């Protein structure tokens, strides 16, 4: 159980605002875990705590423990740079590097960390683009700008970029909210493929999407984890009234 994530007693703050209040959750490896909840409930903050990206926001603080494969990623000797290499992230809006080519976008994580051997890079770039189902569309224009692609292609490019550094966990922060339904479908298909090898956590606003793609679902409300269970159970027999109200559309 290497990529298992155990979060205990996690509190996160932006200045004096408390965004997460005592989260305890244990996420299994090689499954898709969806995080749902109304806007501002702390979903994104939660996954940004898992790859230590929360702390790059000015005035952001946190306390608690996040264990990845048994090791606390917030312990004093944990290097955030190495942790982020193990835990990749795909953002809400596609954000390829505009000054880099498609090839260099995928290779960025490796190149910027000193891996320069062309043979190695070629293989990794091709493999990553194939895994993100983009290879066929871009193999003839790897030197074109990353931002010359469509929004959905850009998002798959960002997924390839995250895959290229060989993470164990991939975090998706509402990866489809800026995409059209067809691109969304492609990304969801991709999630099915990826969970064979990676632990996946996906934040989504779309409950149908959570139901479609995830094995487990966590429901957040006002910075608290209300309920966490198998997706099927959350959507068919939620234990908490607030969960039921939310998934049946009574608020949120």
């Amino acid at each position: 159980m290497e990529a298992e994530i155990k979060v205990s007693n996690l509190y996160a703050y932006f200045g004096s605002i408390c965004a997460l209040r005592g989260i305890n959750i244990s996420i299994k490896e090689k499954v898709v875990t969806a995080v749902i909840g109304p806007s501002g409930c702390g979903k994104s903050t939660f996954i940004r705590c898992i790859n230590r990206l929360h702390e790059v926001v000015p005035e952001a603080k946190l306390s608690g423990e996040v264990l990845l494969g048994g090791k606390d990623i917030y312990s004093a000797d944990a290097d955030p740079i190495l942790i982020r290499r193990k835990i990749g992230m795909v953002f809400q809006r596609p954000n390829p590097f505009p000054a880099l080519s498609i090839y260099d976008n995928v290779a960025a994580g490796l190149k910027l960390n000193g891996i320069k051997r062309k043979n190695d890079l070629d293989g990794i770039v091709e493999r990553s683009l194939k895994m993100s189902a983009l290879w066929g569309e871009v193999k003839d224009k790897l030197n074109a700008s990353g931002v010359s692609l469509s929004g959905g292609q850009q998002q798959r490019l960002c997924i390839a970029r995250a895959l290229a550094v060989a993470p164990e966990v991939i975090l998706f922060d509402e990866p489809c909210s800026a995409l059209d339904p067809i691109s969304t479908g492609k990304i969801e298909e991709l999630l099915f493929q990826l969970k064979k090898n990676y632990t996946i956590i996906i934040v989504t606003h779309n409950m149908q999407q959570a139901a479609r793609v995830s094995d487990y679902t966590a429901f957040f409300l006002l910075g608290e984890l209300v309920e966490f269970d198998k997706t099927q159970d959350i959507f068919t027999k939620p234990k908490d009234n607030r969960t039921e109200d939310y998934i049946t559309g009574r608020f949120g």
Partner: protein
Amino acid sequence: MNIYIKRKIINKLMCGAAFFSALLTLAPLISIFGYVISKGITSVNFDFFTHLPMPVGEHGGGMSNAIVGTLILIGLSCLWAIPLGVFGGVYLAEFGNNKFAAAVRFSADVLNGIPSIVIGIFAYTVFVLPMKSFSAISGAFALGIIMVPTIMRATEEMLRMVPFALREAALALGVSQSRMIVSIVLKTALPGILTGILLAIARIAGETAPLLFTAFGNRFWPQGLNQPIAALPLQIFNYAISPYDDWHRQAWAGALVLILMVFLISLLTRFVIKPKYRRKEMIWKQK
């Protein structure tokens, strides 16, 4: 009157006024260009670029020493002002959320507004007096002081325009902050930073006042960086206030060459350090 017709008339009037104003702002530029070309073109010949100035009374000669001198002065100024300005800009944009940075920003803006002759006097006191000689170095020092705030603020502005999402994307790949700044943020902002540097160069290329008591001018080839050196704007100034018609013509030619030099520098830089992708592609569509 019908309100729609009234609106259309006002629309036409306002459009006309805006167009006319745009035309008016263009007029001085075009007339300066035209005037300098018409006055200077007849005296620009091969000798002008290859010969030293002739003594008073003798015809011919050129400003080759001043052209070389100006290039040397620009090069020397860039040598220290570009690294300083760019590094300072990186500090202000990436780590500048404190009072010290605010003070730096404010003083850079003040420095930008200081008359260039004052900067010349300052360079005179700290460089020329102790060295007991006018020199190319002191000239480059004065010109660099003019460049630094421009470059620093331009760099800062350009770096700030790089979306936070790109920084996050790089960090999320396990890239260190220093690598992220150099390879992603600076690289993305490079065309804008270059434009800032070019503007600074264009500005100092024509500066005369700060050179009056630093580089001083020289009628011969440059003799070393610690010696007085010729510069086109200085030569133009000296020739223009002289009583000789021949020198007046040479001054016009010098003005034309100076304009062309600035034009050429910006053209060359753009050509040599071409961004990989055109600006249109670089524009970030979101946020």
